[in-house]
């Protein structure tokens, strides 16, 4: 058993080493996308928000299908328990059990922060596959947390992306980002995301802790911790309907 694992690791390492030398930036990006996205995923997570009045931890469970459909139910703290969020395309609805109301979040509200975090609803909703909307070049190499990385520079191929430029530190072995920086058109750094605690889940590497930081804003940023994630499940269609908000 142990032996097998070592062999696999060696093979993986070796093959990576081989490819590493002449793989193109866009191919790296594709591999990263393959690691991070799936047809659908179910995530149980915690979000640690460092607020002015202390830290808060919000627990939730999300069902996501493709890039268009997503359903989230908040589990803790008690005040937020039962609050649900449904995203279909560019539309978003919130449901709160206390009011038994389904409220549409539209336009400008999407740019507001979610639960006081460093993420906006829009940030949460944006999950296009990187290789489909960015063109990448290898800009250099770096070592992050004892891991050798490529530094990829991503330039948007579509003109309506929120972040026209990104910098991505890609793990040369596992093909996952270890750090991502989001830039404004002018080149000003806006946000930084650090990816940590990479684990192997269902045969793919996945970072289970992410720290989001709005660099222009003071504060410690927002931490996103994946407690459990499963890929390519059978998610019933009714989950992604307004009716399921009230359940």
């Amino acid at each position: 058993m142990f032996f097998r694992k070592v062999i696999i690791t060696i093979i993986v390492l070796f093959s990576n080493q081989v490819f590493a030398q002449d793989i193109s930036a866009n191919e790296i990006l594709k591999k990263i996308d393959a690691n991070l996205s799936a047809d659908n995923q179910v995530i149980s997570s915690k979000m640690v928000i460092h607020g002015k009045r202390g830290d808060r931890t919000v627990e939730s469970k999300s069902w996501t299908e493709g890039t268009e459909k997503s359903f989230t139910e908040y589990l803790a703290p008690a005040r937020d328990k039962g609050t649900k969020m449904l995203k279909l395309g560019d539309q978003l609805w919130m449901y709160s059990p206390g009011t038994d109301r389904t409220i549409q979040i539209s336009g400008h509200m999407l740019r507001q922060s979610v639960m006081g975090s460093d993420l906006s609803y829009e940030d949460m909703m944006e999950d296009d596959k990187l290789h489909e909307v960015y063109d990448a070049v290898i800009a250099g190499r770096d070592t992050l947390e004892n891991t050798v990385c490529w530094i990829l520079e991503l330039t948007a191929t579509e003109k309506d992306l929120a972040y026209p430029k990104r910098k991505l530190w890609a793990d040369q072995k596992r093909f996952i980002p270890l750090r991502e920086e989001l830039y404004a058109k002018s080149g000003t750094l806006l946000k930084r995301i650090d990816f940590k605690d990479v684990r192997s889940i269902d045969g793919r590497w996945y970072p289970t802790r992410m720290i989001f930081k709005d660099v222009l804003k003071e504060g410690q940023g927002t931490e996103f911790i994946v407690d459990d994630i499963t890929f390519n499940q059978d998610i019933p269609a009714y989950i992604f309907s307004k009716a399921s908000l009230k359940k």
Partner: protein
Amino acid sequence: MFKFLLKGILRDHHRSLFPIVIVVLGVSLTVLAHCWINGILGDMIDFNAKYSTGHVKIVTNGYEDNMDQMPVELALGNVDELLAKVRKDYPKMEWVERIRFGGLIDAPDNKGETRAQGPALGLAVDLLSPDTKEVERLNINKSIVRGKSPEKNGEILISDELADKLKVIPGQIVTLMTSTMYGSMAMQNYIVSGTIKFGVTAMDKGAMILDITDAKYVMDMQDEVSEILGYFSNGIYNNVSATTVQNRFNAAYKDSTGEFAPVMLKLRDQNELASMLDYISRMISIFISVFVLAMSIVLWNAGLLGGLRRYGEMGLRLAIGEFKGRVYRSLIYESVIVGFIGSAIGTIIGLGAAFYLQEVGLDFSDLMQNATVLWPGVFRAKITLPAYYIGFIPGLISTVIGTMLSGIGIYKRQTAQLFKELET
């Protein structure tokens, strides 16, 4: 000498009555004019005090820096203790809790889904305590367009325009979406008990008023509130007293620092009101000096009149051997007494009238289309410190000057001539 002159004034109505009546009338008009102009020019200040600044206001350091954004996360803590302290330290002032916040008002369709929504500006005040003065302070009852003021928790007022926009009528339910003090999302249903007109477009576009306990609940506040406002019991902003209270309070908290440390602001330091206050006091001084000038001319005339009437008497007195200087001086003394008595009575009458207009006011709301929070339609005078002495300026000085000028005649004319005037 004084006693003699006083007796003369009191007993000889010819000497005293008419001049005193004129002085009284003039002085009371001056005092009244002063108080009235103070009242009507100060109404913007008043509105600010009632609606947002208080006469003094306690917030946190951090809140002060970002006051425009109404940051509930920077609310004051330990409010019960703080309130008890200020109520004990400044018993003559009235202290109230307020929360201002931003949010979204959402009106449901019959499935409970969004039918219409709009951004809302929230103001939480004490609406429901049995002895609350906030309802009156904000002129809520008179500004209600439809429905009525909230009578129990869970009821709110929204601006009439917002109600129209959302197609909501009193009795229907709307949902407020905002965030708690900790940044969590907060949603709460309320019954719209009535709609209100503020008279300021920004607020008429989308403001809501709710009870402070409701707001605390939805924003997850227990012993917190974003602002504590203090009002002087007479309802009038006095910068000197406010500064004293402010200095004392801030000195007591000078050791607490950081974003959440309480700090007291006075009205003058908020909402750009310093320049407004200066502007008003300048306007008042211009008005009043012009008024005093005009009044002085009138009273000078009266003084002149008083002097002229008595040429005969002067002639007689000179004839029996009084010195011109002595007669002249006695006239001046007399006019000082007349001026003083007149000014005193005039000030009392003027203040009385002003007090009535301050407490009761003149209600023009029938003339106006509808009363609003900003324009209650009741105009009030306002008694400030200068009202107690301003009347003496025209009352005393112009009477004396008038007498002085008319008295010159004594020097100009021969004794015989004056005496002749007595004869005719």
